[in-house]
């Protein structure tokens, strides 16, 4: 029977630790405690900031944006205010719909205005009169600031300069109907249809072309793409490494790949910039306050905080997107300013009207589950 004692000691040890942990909350465990005992330690730890004096408790953030860009922003908020941030990364806007009778989140961060405006139309977001909201042009905000976009991006093609030259890469969305693009060296890459950026892209095409043609387009890229990835980060890495000749991404992924120590010989083509073409498909990332969340005051504080200019830049963070606030200098070199591009003439909040049916269309075209 002795042989069992080793096995047995483990859960017991774990339990012992558990008991110890409940008593003395360790500093590193900002994620460890789950609201059960609201943290009073962190409040004492924080030292300066006047606004911090009034805040405590926690803030639940759902984010559809890449964790790499968001976590630093949330850490900054936590450091400066003492509010404990509990983040769920990779959240889908529809999770907020499903939880509307049992609201969990205080703040929703998204990189797709379509999703934000959809939630707004469903009445799940709450507006507010924030001090610095005027720094963002009205077309990048909902009517009552239910959502506020802070950074923008445009769709286009990242390509590997070792494999193809600029004129061997498509220059418009329409080009992708053509099967010839399946024949570039190692083919090209797109994301899975469930990806927020892809949903926005398809919505914009529906606005431009109508449903039938858009569905044909989705089917065409599904058939012709050599790689279908979970996210855009996979695409930029794959194109940088020469696994595919080009890929359909947002512009900032190009800037990210440029900053890589190797595999960085990449170029970027903004789509549909020619005379008479529709202009690049734009989308934006922004923040919103969820209606009826458990920590409404902290959500207000977060909205005010993130609109401070310093924090608008922090929101852009490592994403290398272009800040929407025209006063702000993009935090990296050779950024293409919003004003320098020819954009599609669709108001961004239109995306909200397309959101729901777009996911259905993508599903019908069979792109929602593919990975290759």
């Amino acid at each position, binding site marked *: 029977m002795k042989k069992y004692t080793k096995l047995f000691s483990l859960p017991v040890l774990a339990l012992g630790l558990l008991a110890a942990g409940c008593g003395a909350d*360790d*500093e590193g*465990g900002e994620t460890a405690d789950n609201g059960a005992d609201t943290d009073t330690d962190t409040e004492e730890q924080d030292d300066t900031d006047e606004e911090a004096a009034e805040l405590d408790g926690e803030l639940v953030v759902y984010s559809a944006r890449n964790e790499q860009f968001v976590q630093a922003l949330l850490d900054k908020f936590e450091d400066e205010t003492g509010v404990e941030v509990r983040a769920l990364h990779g959240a889908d806007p529809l999770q907020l719909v499903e939880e509307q009778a049992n609201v969990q989140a205080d703040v929703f961060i998204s990189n797709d205005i379509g999703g934000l405006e959809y939630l707004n139309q469903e009445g799940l977001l709450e507006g507010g009169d924030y001090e610095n909201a005027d720094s963002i042009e009205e077309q990048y905000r909902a009517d009552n600031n239910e959502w506020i976009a802070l950074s923008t991006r445009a769709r286009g093609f990242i390509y590997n300069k070792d494999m193809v030259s600029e004129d061997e890469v498509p220059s418009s969305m329409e080009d992708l109907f053509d099967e010839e693009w399946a024949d570039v060296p190692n083919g090209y890459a797109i994301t899975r249809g469930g990806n927020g950026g892809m949903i926005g892209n398809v919505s914009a095409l529906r606005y431009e072309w109508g449903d039938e043609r858009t569905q044909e387009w989705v089917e065409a890229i599904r058939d012709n793409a050599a790689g279908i990835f979970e996210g855009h980060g996979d695409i930029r890495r794959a194109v940088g490494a020469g696994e595919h000749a080009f890929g359909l991404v947002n512009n900032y992924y190009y800037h990210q790949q440029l900053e890589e120590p190797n595999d960085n010989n990449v170029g970027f083509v903004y789509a549909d910039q020619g005379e008479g073409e529709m202009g690049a498909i734009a989308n934006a990332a922004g923040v919103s306050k969820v209606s009826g969340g458990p920590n409404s005051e902290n959500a207000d504080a977060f909205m005010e905080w993130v609109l401070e200019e310093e924090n608008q830049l922090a929101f852009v963070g490592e994403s290398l997107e272009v800040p929407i606030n025209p006063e702000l200098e993009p935090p990296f070199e050779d950024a293409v300013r919003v004003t320098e591009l020819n954009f599609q003439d669709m108001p961004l909040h239109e995306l909200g009207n397309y959101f729901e049916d777009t996911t259905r269309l993508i599903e019908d075209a069979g792109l929602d*589950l593919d990975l290759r």
Partner: protein
Amino acid sequence: MTDHNNSQNSQKNTGHDAKVGGSGSPALLHFFGRRWRAVWNGNPPGLILLLAGLFVALIMSVPIIYVAWRSLFAGADSWLRLLDGRIPALLWNTASLTIAVTVLAIAIGVSLAWIVVRTDLPGRRAWQWLMALPLVIPPYVGAVTYIIVFGPSGWARDWWEAVPFLGDYALNIYSFWGVFLVLTLFTYPYVFLIVSASLRRMNRNYEEVARSQGYSTAKVFWKVNLPFLRPAIGAGAILISLYVLSDFGAIAMLRYVTFTAAIYFQRASFDTASASVLSLVLILLTMVILWIEVRTRKKNKFYQTSNSYREPDTLKLGKWKPLALVYVSTVFVFSVALPIGVLVYWTYIGFEQHVIDSRFFGFAWNSLKVSALAAVASMILALPVIYLKSRYPSMISTGIDKLSYAGYALPGVIVALGMVFIFNTHIPAFYNTYYLIILAFVVRFLPQAMQAGEASLSLVSPRIDEAARSLGYPPWKVMIKVILPSIMPGVFAGGALVFVSSIKELPATLMLRPPGFDTLAVRVYYEASEAIYYQAAPGALLIVLVSLIPLRYLLKKY
């Protein structure tokens, strides 16, 4: 009612003295009382114990029943759309992968077992457990290491391109073959362990008869050994095919889509109707496999005669020795040395980059917390089920036992899906708390605690129970005061198994984790999918090390 029924040890009691209840029609109650006793063979377990058992069965089966129920209300539209477009393709993907992995894993497992157990392979004692080692590497961790080495930008590409005449790098890990290989390498030990045990028990006499009839070693293997091994191979095959059906992590990382992955992605985009329809199909698929198992078990009964048992002899490998050694080492390199080596290498880099910080320990602490609590809960909940099954056998206790296996056989995504439904709509207070993760672990892994406990309980004589009952203890009290202390080692072994399975668990944790509560497994999955390997490796290595703990038990068990 409890006290009325304490007529222990009365198998021949016809129930005349069963005064059940006080008022109402005595004749009718009498009738039911008698029926009740008949169900239990005259020895009913008492209300408290029975309720405890029923409670466990309820917890274990409700999430699954709920998913099935929801799928019926998904609407004809969803059903038709899926049946038309999605299901045939998924069925093909899932079935082809399951069959391919199972077949190759059997081939590898049986051949290794035969070489290691029956031949004079140098170092066979060591190989016996080295070959079982892949069991401690969760396939999603294995998949990460294979992407690092064989991925399109992996190390293998550099080697490949260094060889002048090979041309372009031609290995594609993100393919059927990649998934097939990775899953096989990390699941074959199930067959290996079970078949090894069978081989060791095989009676030499049969082989000698065959040999005396002029059979060659090869012919003996096919005609004598293999038929005897069929039950063992079958048991291993079931474990493997159920695993392939349920795996999410490795399959998603290698960009293959089976039912389980599809359900996860449907759920992630909140297409709940489709997710539950696909779940029902997957439940049916699982039941088909279980049915096949029951069928083959009934058909194939082989008996070893124990009275003339003689240990099997060791065959001389002779000129085959180098070849056998190469084969065994190759499997070891690809299923153990390579993944562990990669993890150690990236952990070292991560260590230099200071990724093992307070955040990392926060995740480790979360993993530890949910896994330890799940282990404790399983130890407690397993007790009434196994006690009922062994001391009060009846239709009802068998039913409770069977229901407790529901979550074990089914994929974690389905268990998690059911829990999301139930808690979000009916029990919102617990929704988005880590208690849900613990509950999901219990539903998924309770049978591991049950099996370990049962093994111990079978060694305790029922006479002890009877003695305690005759001194006036009700059945539940006998279980806790008398039986529990003597089966403690088995219960704790079960707890350890649950603990390790929980640490490794990925899909249910991903779907149920509340905001700000990531575990090591979740981080490994996320960081690996972002290709930040130096962050993923330390967590993965820690999971592998923890999984080593119950290996000794597993080796003993088979």
